């Protein structure tokens, strides 16, 4: 068993409204930073034991499927950082 650090990023699927992003974009514009696009996502840094990098990825996927992401609106990316 090895200790792995995994970065999980949860973001909204393409086409799903991101109300917080729209508001933040407007606030930035008011500060003199007009932006063409702004998206929010949420990142989890998780450290846990796994057999190998593949196993770590599988476990992280399972975390996303079971709890971290809602498949109706979210997609997720997993980066095994070691």
């Amino acid at each position, binding site marked *: 068993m090895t200790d792995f650090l995994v970065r999980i990023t949860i973001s909204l699927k393409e086409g799903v409204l991101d*109300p917080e992003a729209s508001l933040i974009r407007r606030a930035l514009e008011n500060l003199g930073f007009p932006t063409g696009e702004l998206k929010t996502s949420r990142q989890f840094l998780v450290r846990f034991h796994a057999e190998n990098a593949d196993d770590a990825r599988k476990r992280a996927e399972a975390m996303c499927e079971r709890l971290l992401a809602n498949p109706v*609106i979210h997609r997720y990316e997993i980066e095994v950082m070691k």
Partner: protein
Amino acid sequence: MRFAVVQFGGSNCDRDVAYVLNDVCGIDTDLVWYKEGLSRGYDAVILPGGFSYGDYLRAGAIAARTRIMDDVRRIAGRNGLVLGICNGAQILAESGLVPGVFTINAYPKFICRPAYLRVENPKNPFTLLYAGGEVIRIPIAHREGRYIPPSAGRTGTLKEEYVAFRFCDPAGNITHESNPNGSFENITGVLSSGGNVLAMMPHPERASEDILGSSDGKRIFLSMARFIEENS
């Protein structure tokens, strides 16, 4: 006949619902702490509003994965009635007991005000005492109430048989202006495929006595009781 109202850490409408059921509707109701489970043979289970687990991660996400939800699933599976109100609705959606998800309002602030709803489907256990197309007034209080059906995004859709309530204007028109949170097609009440599970964002327990300004919500609880009487 006996109803259960499940209490999670952070539920805050549990006592209101139990009061309306016991004292206003005359339905024997127990408050059940989520760790106790639902071992008694309940005819109906209600998941009340509030902020279970502080709305951390997503509203309802943590509560949806507690062990008592296996009991709720079992009760739903044997055609018992399950009603989720506000945070309870979010929990049911997160559990997959109804399709879709309730997420952050189109304008991302907390909305607390009365809302007009159109009863879209009067043939289910929760609305059989209403007329089809009837307009009722029940308050909403949420920040994460925007309904999105499965296959999210622009292509999402929900069959009409799943729709219990839509936001409308006082005359019953489904308009953009009468949709307070940006819900898909104004939908704010969603049924399971079997029709025995209802997830709704508005709070019927806050509209169950005239002194509260509306008693339109009371008929949801009375409909449930009538359905159980007729089918037992």
